[in-house]
């Protein structure tokens, strides 16, 4: 593969037919960090006769990208209807309309696919993907209405910021606070717990789920040898943060002097007094969380833990300690400036000639971009089942076994190649390459793609060995070791 495509495979999503291929790939890659990231996509795909017609690529409509307040409001409407539906006999059509009008999980997931397929900010989208996986917010307790919001506003919006900012914004986002149960947690000596625990059928107290994962997964990792007390104290700092989306605005004003779900701290649930986490003294009250996340963001173990993850995800399947050290050094030298950290990751990924196996999710977007196929529905068709030869976005990722909107464990998807080497996973790639070829109307021939990327001899030999059938040639190319990121040019 030529250098341009090698870099865009490792760090990006491949160049689309018609994209200008930059001569100086390193400068281009670095400039990508500051590319604009509007959510662009298409309204619809249709089939006219034998050809696929795609509407023009333009900005996603505003009404499909609501703010948190609107998302919470829609959630309340959704729940109220469901309550009513249990009493009255509502038709399936009405129930479906309620889901489609008031839930945002599928809309956000399609928007994410469009970002991947149509975006001109391919490196930023890959970093968005990395951090979304690092800060897993799976669809548990049905928090699907806010996951996409956290991705756009807490992660993507902070890609050029400091890690400490991203950490705080994600930790305090309702998607995380709901996912890891923090919205119900109350300090054992909080006003709420004291009031509640003298009543017979009332239970209130600490829930350590987020406090634990904040240390174990999001920052220092078990290598830091923190104790159960550190975990509990971290949970005490978090107690009071967040609420479910059905909370009344009146209650929010009373408890937190705000109606903003992303800045909501229930004073009656807070644990009074200072807390000690890994030797750091944390102030009582709302400001405690920022102190804690700032402390953790620049902790030596956080730097080591996340530098290793970045290296494993972008640089090589068997990362060199010296590469990890360089990312860690960039982190230390810049006090966690993500631009500096990402710059180092990009430089090392380009420098390393080691292959980097690509996730199923990344691979499918790369196949679609390389071929110019129209394999994802437009936003007007988000709820269409199989239609015009194309599967529903949600279904694609269920079949692929990888989705940020699935119910899953907080450790996210592994970047290790071994976790994905299975017959079933590979069969999915063959089947999807076929489906993209059959349903997506590829714009470029397999030969043309091979010329464009300067496919290596082994890949060309493979493609030629499967005969003249264009579908077989396409599948062979996309499932070659070269295109799966299993070997380099």
């Amino acid at each position: 593969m030529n250098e341009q495509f090698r870099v865009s495979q490792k760090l990006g999503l491949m160049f689309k037919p018609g994209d200008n291929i930059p001569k100086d790939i390193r400068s281009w890659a670095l400039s990508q960090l500051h590319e604009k990231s509007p959510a662009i996509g298409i309204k619809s795909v249709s089939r006219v006769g034998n050809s696929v017609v795609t509407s023009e690529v333009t900005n996603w409509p505003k009404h499909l990208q609501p703010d948190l307040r609107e998302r919470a409001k829609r959630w309340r409407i959704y729940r109220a209807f469901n309550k009513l539906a249990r009493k009255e006999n509502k038709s399936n059509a009405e129930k479906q309309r309620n889901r489609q009008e008031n839930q945002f999980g599928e809309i956000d997931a399609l928007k994410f696919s469009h970002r991947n397929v149509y975006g001109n900010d391919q490196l930023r989208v890959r970093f968005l993907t990395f951090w979304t996986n690092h800060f897993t917010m799976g669809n548990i307790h049905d928090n699907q209405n806010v996951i996409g919001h956290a991705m756009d506003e807490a992660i993507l919006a902070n890609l050029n910021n400091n890690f400490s900012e991203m950490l705080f914004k994600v930790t305090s986002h309702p998607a995380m606070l709901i996912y890891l149960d923090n919205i119900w947690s109350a300090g054992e000596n909080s006003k709420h717990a004291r009031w509640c625990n003298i009543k017979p059928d009332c239970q209130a107290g600490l829930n350590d789920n987020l406090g634990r994962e904040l240390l174990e997964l999001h920052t220092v990792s078990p290598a830091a040898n923190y104790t159960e007390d550190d975990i509990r104290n971290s949970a005490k700092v978090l107690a009071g943060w967040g609420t479910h989306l059905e909370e009344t605005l009146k209650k929010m004003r009373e408890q937190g002097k705000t109606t903003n779900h992303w800045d909501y701290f229930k004073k009656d649930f807070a644990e009074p007094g200072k807390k000690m986490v890994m030797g750091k003294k944390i102030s009582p009250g709302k400001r405690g969380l920022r102190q804690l996340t700032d402390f953790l963001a620049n902790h030596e173990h956080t730097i080591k833990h996340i530098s290793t993850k970045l290296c494993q995800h972008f640089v090589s399947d068997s990362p060199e300690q010296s590469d990890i050290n360089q990312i860690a050094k960039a982190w230390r030298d810049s006090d966690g400036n993500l631009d500096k950290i990402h710059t180092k990751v990009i430089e090392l990924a380009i420098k390393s000639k080691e292959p980097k196996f690509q996730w199923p999710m990344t691979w499918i977007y790369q196949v679609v971009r390389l071929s110019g196929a129209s394999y994802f529905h437009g936003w007007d068709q988000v709820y269409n089942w199989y239609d015009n030869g194309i599967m529903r976005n949600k279904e694609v990722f269920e079949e692929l076994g990888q989705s940020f909107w699935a119910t899953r464990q907080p450790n996210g998807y592994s970047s290790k190649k071994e976790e994905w080497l299975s017959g079933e996973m590979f069969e999915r790639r063959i089947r999807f390459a076929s489906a993209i070829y059959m349903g997506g109307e590829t714009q470029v021939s397999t030969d043309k793609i091979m010329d464009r990327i300067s496919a290596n001899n082994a890949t060309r030999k493979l493609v030629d060995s499967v005969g003249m059938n264009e579908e077989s040639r396409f599948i062979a190319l996309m499932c070659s070791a070269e295109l799966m990121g299993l070997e380099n040019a």
Partner: protein
Amino acid sequence: MHKLNLTRRDFLKTTGASLFLAGVPIPGYTKDKPPGTISVILLEGGMDGLTAVPPFGDPDLLKMRKIISPKNYLKLNSFFGLHPSFRVLAGLFANNQASVVHATSIPYVKRSHFEGQNMMEGGGLSPFSENSGWLGRALDLANTPGRALSLDMPLVLRGHNENDNFYPASIRNSSKLNTKLIEAISMAHAKESADVYSKISNKSKVDVSNIPRDPASLAKYAGKVMSQDEGPLASVIRIPEFDTHARQGADTGKHADLLGIIDDVIAGYREGLGSAWDRSIILTMTEFGRTVAVNGTTGTEHGYGTAGILAGGTIQKSRIITQWPGLSKNDQFERRDLMATIDYWSVCAACIEKALGLDHELIAKKVFLRPNLPRVFDYIFS
């Protein structure tokens, strides 16, 4: 406050269980066919053994966890009860075909899911120390290569050469697998990935497209293929989401629904295995138990000791196998968790011994890397 009113059906729909099958004896390759089959139900997230099999004879139980303990439990003996979600299991108990090991755990005490799950599948001396899994190593020792049914290859089965997996795919508008094409792709890959591709061409001959993916149907399918003469000897079903930090429920609710899934899976196996039930053993395992005390959000936190459930026709007498440590604060592990008095690896070892016909010493040394692992075979199978 917000309550999750999931109906059982909705819940099953959203719970992504997955099935893995392994250990297919190859004629002429396996000298003596192992005597039985082994099925492992992995309960991810930390199953609460004190709710599944409540020790109602312990005076501290209701003091500490009244709101999450079932009221309508089935009495197993004067001390232990069985959660009402276990309807099929209760019947098996009555027929001497199920047992419980209580106050047990794998020897991992640090309460991290991801370290704990890695230990539970890897079976090594510490988390992330092994690249293969205990069941994979056991099948390898028994010379029974196999295949798995799921999207990914679980660690627990890794480690034997002929590993492969199945999972019913539904990718529309994709062509049928073309064996020649797959072979060409396989040949162009380096060994590691070439091996994976070459297995796909074998499996393109088997039609698994009509298997529903709910846990009970997967178990039924697994039981059916395991009952065949040339069928796999081992299967693994993974059930996620036991991590009930909030609103755990008691007789009903989230944890009760999850226990119901275990019951469904056991029922599925029972039906699918048919007459092969008599030579089968099914066991559950989880990375850790949950705290004795209820937390502030009517759930429980990560703990240590828990219960293991065993079922199958190889069991001769239903028992509750335990050295009960007590639930008072001083009896608890680190004054918060149920103490584990039985190493669950020894339970797994006994099941391997029964199903695969291997010697305990060999299993202890080669599978669990612990030459001194106690043998508890007679407590379970006599």
